[in-house]
């Protein structure tokens, strides 16, 4: 037996070798014989009525095989979406956001497709649109979605998509107990995922079947959506989902796969569409928000009530934005003991890029407002910012959101660790400031993950599962579980993913779920193998099964311990073969729960920051950045640190530099890498420490909880708090660019 790759160690990433040799195949690296290259036809307007599309000239470009316009698609136009079927395959009648495709060309070469796209003549009339919360809520605002498509919806004649109401207790009954009430409003800007791999899709008709390659995170959801649209049985629709080159939520749901599928079926040939980075910006973004927090406290700093209103500016089609808003609003009051809470959330449609899941799933936006308001309260009450949080934290096991999972960790440990690592009790060096904030996100509320583990006669193993490994390292963790349970080296394990005809169903890869939910499934598959091995050992050794134990790679008989693989080799006999285990993990819907399911676990993080602010330029230097997560158990400490560091730096992106800018008509002005900045190796904190609290108290195998999002949940308020500490400036909008900070300093000096 080897200790290599066991749970709790950090073996080399499974799939890591191909990532350093260039052999890793992403969707854009895959070519099919006879393929056509697709390009999108778009117009430079955020909202316009399409009058006509003339393809005559474009069709004459040599090599052009297909030009697809809405007229070539079924009537009425097929629509799709994970929540509402509101997104058309191509814009129909009206372009509703900048970059929405109105037609598409497929040609023998990319160049021919590009040439033809430029020759498609779209006649249109620009229409006024809405791209801010205020504009969208104006009673005279043009409606983003046609009210006739929203029959029975009380908000159909407004741009409000959905209103959510959560809470407990009665604020009016307890309001009198508050010595102090603070009310603040905070804004969070539009940002985009900017995975380095732009989205890419290929569809290939194959007799009465269709094969689709996509950079998708949820192949099985894509399969379901396409099968329904194309009226194909699931068995005839095969999704290949090679490891995405970064997802961060942006690749969860179908985007242009339906279009590419229709094109391939029409052309009778494979069609590939590799989007540009600019087009990818126009396909996914995070909801921007305006959040109002009214918080009542006693003079000692005990929270009495929290009254929160969240407004999410979503795009022209909903995608998963309603779920993002609902799920994050639900935890808006944070991980605190509060007698009365009222939360009203709202999604607001606009003529902007459809918003989707993005690491943190709405929580970073809400947390920026809540934690910053709490900070302002602490300052005014003269209470230490760490103490005000500590005193309101629930004990482990306390149902801080009535009816949901109780606090599932000893969270004060996490907060104390962050405080200790930043040196909260030590004097702040001259010219600097410190801040601290807490983030909480609820994990998956439902789940269904199947897996198969095949222990082969030579002691190697195959794992089949439908998780997408987009960098979080799922393959490695599942291989570690099998290495641990079978007692085999991790190098002898292969993890098969990303093909719906090969791997069993998995609901999705999101919400930091996979180690917990698919991990449990893989663990159970191993347990099934253990059961079969026990029967085998009983037969081979003439023993009674009750006297045999199988565990962690070992078969224990009375007076004898044998490696599982030895028993299996002997037990399989001369014909060889394998032992197969199937695993299943279900987290069912809870119909009475406001989110239709309680949290499988909470992601709990505390971030502490020390900054220096340049009084001349307004530039913020992060001197020290500490992030601590309650992870239950770190199955692979190196990967946990990688996720935490990565999320922390991503959090600095939306905190310090990232913002999508629109012109007055709603066109994006900073499309692409030149004008939209994300953190580089030159933007890092001088010191970044990611630490974990491990009490083995998670619901997954070996006590694991989900990670991967925690350390960006509260980056912004921690930085904001530190900037305030350093300068006295309260800035309630992001990003904290040098310009914004400089302007705030100048205003302060004038006053």
């Amino acid at each position, binding site marked *: 037996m080897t200790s290599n790759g066991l749970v709790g160690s*950090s073996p*080399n*990433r499974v*799939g*890591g*070798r*191909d*990532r*350093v*040799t*260039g*052999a*890793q*195949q*992403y969707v*854009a*690296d895959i070519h099919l014989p006879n393929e056509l290259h697709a390009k999108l036809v778009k117009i430079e307007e955020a909202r316009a009525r399409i009058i006509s599309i003339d393809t005559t000239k474009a069709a004459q470009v040599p090599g052009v095989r297909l030009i697809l316009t809405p007229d070539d698609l079924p009537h009425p136009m097929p629509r799709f979406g994970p929540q509402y079927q509101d997104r058309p395959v191509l814009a129909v009648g009206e372009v509703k956001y900048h970059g929405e495709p109105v037609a598409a060309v497929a040609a023998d070469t990319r*160049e021919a497709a590009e040439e033809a796209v430029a020759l498609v003549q779209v006649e249109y009339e620009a229409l006024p649109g809405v791209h801010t919360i205020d504009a969208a809520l104006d009673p005279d605002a043009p409606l983003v979605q046609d009210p006739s498509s929203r029959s029975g919806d009380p908000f159909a004649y407004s741009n409000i998509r959905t209103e959510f109401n959560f809470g407990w207790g009665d604020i009016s009954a307890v309001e009198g107990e508050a010595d102090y009430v603070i009310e603040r409003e905070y804004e969070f800007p539009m940002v985009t*995922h*900017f*995975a*380095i*791999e*732009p989205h890419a899709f290929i569809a290939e008709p194959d007799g009465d079947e269709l094969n689709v390659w996509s950079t998708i995170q949820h192949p099985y959801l894509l399969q379901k959506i396409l099968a329904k649209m194309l009226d194909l049985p699931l068995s005839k629709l095969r999704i290949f989902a090679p*490891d*995405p*080159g*970064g*997802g*961060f939520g942006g690749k969860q749901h179908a985007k242009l796969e339906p279009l590419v599928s229709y094109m391939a079926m029409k052309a009778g040939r494979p069609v590939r569409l*590799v989007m*540009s*980075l600019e087009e990818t910006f126009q396909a996914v973004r995070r909801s921007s928000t305006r959040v109002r927090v009214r918080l009542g406290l006693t003079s000692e700093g005990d929270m009495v009530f929290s009254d929160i209103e969240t407004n999410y500016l979503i795009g022209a089609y909903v995608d998963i934005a309603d779920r993002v808003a609902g799920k994050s609003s639900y935890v808006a009051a944070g991980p605190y003991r509060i007698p009365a809470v009222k939360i009203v959330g709202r999604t607001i449609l606009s003529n902007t890029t459809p918003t989707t899941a993005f690491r943190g799933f709405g929580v970073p936006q809400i947390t920026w407002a809540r934690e910053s308001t709490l900070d302002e309260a602490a300052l005014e009450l003269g209470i230490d910012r760490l103490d005000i949080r500590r005193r309101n934290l629930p004990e482990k096991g306390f149902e801080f959101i009535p009816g949901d999972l109780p606090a599932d960790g000893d969270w004060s440990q996490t907060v104390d660790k962050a405080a200790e690592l930043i040196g909260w009790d030590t004097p702040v060096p001259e010219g600097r400031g410190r801040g601290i904030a807490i983030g909480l996100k609820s994990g998956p509320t439902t789940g269904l993950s199947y897996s198969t583990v095949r222990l082969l006669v030579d002691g190697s193993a195959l794992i089949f599962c439908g998780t997408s490994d*987009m*960098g*979080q*390292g799922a393959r490695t963790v599942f291989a570690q579980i099998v290495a641990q349970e079978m007692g085999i080296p991790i190098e002898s394990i292969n993890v098969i993913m990303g093909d719906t005809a090969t791997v069993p169903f998995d609901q999705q890869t999101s919400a930091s779920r996979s180690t917990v939910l698919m991990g449990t499934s893989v663990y159970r598959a191993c347990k099934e193998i253990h059961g079969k091995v026990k029967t085998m050992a009983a037969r081979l050794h003439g023993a009674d099964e009750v006297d045999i134990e199988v565990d962690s790679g070992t078969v224990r008989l009375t007076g004898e311990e044998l490696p599982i693989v030895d028993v299996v080799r002997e037990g399989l006999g001369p014909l060889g073969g394998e032992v197969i285990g199937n695993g299943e993990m279900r987290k069912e819907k809870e119909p009475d729960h406001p989110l239709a399911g309680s949290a499988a676990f909470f992601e709990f993080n505390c971030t502490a920051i020390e900054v220096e602010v340049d009084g001349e330029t307004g530039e913020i230097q992060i001197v020290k950045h500490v992030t601590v997560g309650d992870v239950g158990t770190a199955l692979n400490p*190196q*990967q946990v640190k*990688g*996720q935490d*560091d*990565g*999320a*922390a*730096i*991503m959090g600095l992106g939306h905190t310090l530099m990232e913002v999508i800018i629109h012109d007055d008509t709603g066109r994006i002005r900073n499309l*692409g*890498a*030149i004008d939209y900045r*994300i*953190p*580089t*190796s*030159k933007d*890092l904190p001088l010191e*970044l420490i990611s630490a974990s609290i491990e009490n083995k108290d998670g619901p997954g195998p070996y006590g694991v909880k989900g990670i991967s999002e925690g350390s960006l949940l509260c980056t912004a308020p921690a930085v904001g708090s530190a900037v305030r500490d350093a300068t006295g400036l309260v800035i309630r909008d992001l990003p904290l660019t040098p310009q914004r900070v400089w302007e705030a300093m100048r205003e302060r000096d004038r006053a």
Partner: protein
Amino acid sequence: MSETIHIETTINGRDRAFEVAANLTLLDVLRDQLGLTGSKECCVVGECGACTVIMDGIPMNSCLMLAVEIDGRDVITVEGLATDGHLNALQQAFLDLSAPQCGFCIPGQLMSAHALLQRNSDPTIDDVNEALGGNLCRCAGYLQITEAVMVAAKAGKE
């Protein structure tokens, strides 16, 4: 159809002569004509570094070069780092330190780092961050990447 030009070049240590379309970028030709898909396409404007290759010792954004520019030059792509299936010290360090997450930026990071180590076998952390400053990693494995380059530099010295 645009004009094609005959070029003679060395790619990953191998002399090659072939025709390229005059209007194609080096990135396109590497990926689509030569099947060297390790170099990645992201921004196509020289900002992300995913397409970085080394020409005559200098890291270049292949998305900004025409393929004809490699005529008479020596080009290394990520596929040229390993020898006979053996990872070089830099690749091994990237693997050991879990520098790649999704991996999409990694070929470009490796090429910038390889070019740095070729001209400076004893870099400081600042040298590394500077040399790799044009290689974006949205997974933000920057600390692991920098550490891997430092480890490889040390390994190279021993």
